[in-house]
């Protein structure tokens, strides 16, 4: 701050500088720039005026007479033309723009289509490859198929050959079967011939024996004729008896015991095979056991358990069991000794009309109104077999001890024969009316059928034909289950009638031997004692009668 010489120095220098540089030229240069600007503006104006001049001169050379107004009009027309041209130009530009746009979009489309085409090419190539592989597969399959056809042909040829062989063998079989049948027939014929011969021989022998006996008796009678005085009463009997000497089934003639068996109708009666026990079954649902070993009847016991009337009773071959068929669709087995109910066999859907032991005491066969026969096994307590009979069974019997044949009598007038092993009936016999009861003779050759048309038919089982028919004007079958029975020898048969009379016929001669009148109501069932000639009969009036000599 002391000496400001340098400052003043600088200031003066700067001022001179400014004077020199700036001031001198300032005015000139500003002037010059102004001139420049003026020149520029004048030049522009000049340009404009020359243009105008040109235009005017141009227009004036074309239309001289009209003058300024015409030239103005021309100018206007020209201007309009120019406008129109400009508009066209703009529209053409626009169209060009649109076309360019279109071109772009078309390009794009082309691009897309090319891409699609490429994709399609790829697909096509894939498909051709697929086709090639499929063709190869087809080829393989064709070869397979031709192989298989060859095999098939071979198999067919073999089959044919086998068919031919089979046909020839069938032929052979048929021939063999025919031979067999003819041989069997011949065998049967021979056997029957033999049997006839045997019968003849037997008869001869018997005749001889009887002749012999007669001779002896005659001799004896001649010898002891005085002793036979008291036999007059029994002479007719003797005579009758003579006519059948050995068949000590004395014809029962008088009532031995008379007693009331049940509280209602009595439907069934059967002698026990062992002792003098008779079982009766009735509408009061009980089975009663009567002992007639002494001369009077004793009620041995009552077997209960049934829910409805007992239609039939049967003892087994030992006499230990008794089976009762009941209207409550079931049959029951009791032991005779302790009178206890052992089994109840249910399964039928109708009244069980008959129940019989089949050979051994473990099998029972029942026939019922539901048109079936059922075989029951008592060990398993089940129905082992059911046979459809087609019609309600009224009675049935079993032939031979093993029980391989069953014969049943039906509502539809047929008697059907069954083999235990088959389902269908092996054979059947038509009768004239409903079969109410059946009984088989001891030698299983004869079957008697009590028929509702008031006859008894005797059928020979070997020949399957009706041998004899028994009828009588007074004899009318009492009810649908009226039972007839063979006598123990098979010579006699007894049946009860609707009016209470018991008819007894001779099976061999066909003669009505006797009629036993004592019942007041219809007799439902009769039964012969197997050994003695006792006949038991029961009726609808609660009565049971024992005929014969005790």
């Amino acid at each position: 701050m002391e000496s400001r010489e340098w400052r003043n120095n600088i200031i003066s220098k700067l001022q001179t500088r400014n004077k020199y540089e700036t001031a001198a030229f300032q005015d000139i240069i500003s002037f010059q720039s102004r001139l420049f600007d003026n020149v520029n503006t004048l030049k522009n104006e000049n340009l404009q005026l020359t243009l105008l001049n040109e235009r005017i001169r141009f227009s004036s050379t074309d239309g001289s007479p009209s003058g300024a107004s015409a030239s103005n009009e021309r100018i206007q027309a020209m201007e309009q033309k120019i406008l129109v041209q400009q508009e066209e130009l703009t529209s053409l530009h626009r169209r060009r723009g649109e076309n360019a746009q279109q071109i772009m979009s078309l390009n794009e489309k082309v691009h897309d289509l090319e891409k699609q085409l490429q994709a399609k090419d790829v697909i096509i190539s894939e498909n051709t490859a697929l086709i090639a592989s499929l063709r190869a597969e087809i080829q393989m399959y064709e070869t397979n198929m031709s192989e298989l056809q060859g095999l098939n042909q071979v198999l067919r040829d073999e089959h044919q050959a086998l068919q031919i062989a089979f046909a020839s063998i069938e032929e052979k079989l048929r021939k063999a079967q025919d031979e067999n049948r003819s041989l069997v027939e011949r065998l049967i014929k021979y056997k029957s011939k033999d049997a006839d011969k045997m019968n003849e021989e037997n008869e001869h022998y018997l005749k001889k024996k009887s002749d012999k006996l007669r001779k002896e008796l005659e001799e004896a009678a001649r010898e002891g004729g005085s002793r036979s005085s008291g036999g007059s009463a029994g002479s007719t009997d003797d005579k009758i008896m003579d006519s059948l000497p050995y068949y000590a089934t004395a014809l029962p003639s008088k009532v031995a015991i008379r007693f009331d068996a049940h509280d209602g109708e009595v439907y069934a009666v059967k002698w026990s095979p062992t002792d003098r026990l008779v079982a009766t079954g009735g509408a009061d649902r009980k089975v009663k056991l009567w002992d007639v070993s002494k001369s009077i009847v004793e009620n041995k016991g009552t077997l209960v358990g049934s829910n409805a009337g007992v239609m039939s009773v049967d003892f087994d071959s030992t006499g230990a069991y008794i089976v009762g068929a009941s209207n409550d669709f079931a049959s029951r087995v009791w032991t005779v000794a302790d009178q206890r109910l052992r089994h109840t066999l249910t399964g039928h859907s109708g009244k069980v009309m008959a129940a019989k032991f089949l050979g051994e005491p473990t099998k029972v066969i029942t026939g019922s109104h539901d048109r079936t026969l059922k075989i029951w096994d008592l060990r398993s307590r089940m129905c082992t077999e059911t046979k459809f009979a087609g019609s309600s069974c009224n009675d049935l019997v079993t032939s031979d001890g093993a029980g391989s044949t069953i014969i049943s009598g039906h509502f539809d007038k047929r008697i059907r024969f069954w083999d235990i092993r088959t389902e269908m009936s092996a054979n059947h016999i038509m009768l004239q009316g409903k079969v109410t009861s059946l009984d088989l003779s001891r030698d299983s050759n004869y079957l008697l059928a009590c028929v509702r048309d008031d006859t008894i038919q005797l059928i020979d089982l070997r020949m399957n034909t009706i041998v004899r028919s028994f009828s009588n004007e007074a004899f009318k079958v009492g009810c649908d289950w009226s039972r007839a029975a063979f006598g123990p020898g098979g010579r006699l048969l007894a049946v009860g009638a609707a009016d209470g009379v018991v008819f007894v016929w001779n099976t061999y001669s066909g003669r009505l031997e006797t009629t036993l009148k004592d019942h007041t109501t219809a007799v439902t069932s009769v039964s012969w004692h197997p050994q003695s000639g006792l006949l038991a009969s029961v009726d609808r009036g609660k009565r049971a009668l024992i005929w014969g000599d005790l």
Partner: protein
Amino acid sequence: MANDREVLREIWDGKLPICFHLAQEEIMEIQQPDPFYVMVPRLSYFPLVIDKMKRHFLRFISQENSDSEMWLDFNGQPLKWHYPIGFLYDLYCGNDPQLPWTLTVHFTKFPEDILLHCPNKDVVEAHYMSTVKEADVLKHRGQVMSTMQKKDHNQLWLGLQNDKFDQFWAINRRLMESHGDNDGFKHIPLRIYTDDGVYNQRLVCPKNTDNSRKTLQQMISELYPEKSNVNLRTHGVIIPPETPLQWLSEHLSYPDNFLHLCLC
């Protein structure tokens, strides 16, 4: 504290007359273009003052060159646009003043290896602001510029661009404050140029070791010990050697806060 308003005013008002000629080979019209005369501020930069001149010459050049960058040369020497105009004049014509300063305008053959490209005025602003910040770093360790807001920077640039003394110095005053407790700047931002345009920038303290204000003479003897009779010119005047550096920097700096001194 740049308090010497008189000096500042004198510096600010410095203007140069320039005559622009279009390069002969670029003239495409039949008619010769008139040379373009203009008064330009010493403190400004070339890209800020050439608009009208460019428009004037544009008519006379071929169409294809109209977009290319224009460049100036003096006597075959391409002029670097990022130096202030006054400084360029001092550098090239300091010893031998010719007024008006005749410059040739070119549009083609831009000398890539010598000149930088200046596509627009924003580049000039960017260069100017960076120079100001550099000076501030030297003076105040960058504290003043960093505390100034963007609008102050803008005001600085606009004041320079529009030749508004008060607008410019309202902000520039702050840059001329002393640094902290010191009486003066930390360092003096200055560049010393030789005739061929190469400059020398050193760290110079405004204070001597004995804490007195350093004068120009002392700095010269420090920097150029072997040279005698060294004169420095700036703003068209030769500075007396006893001028203190601090005062010099405050008042005689160009708008970019640097002292551009030419050796002569």
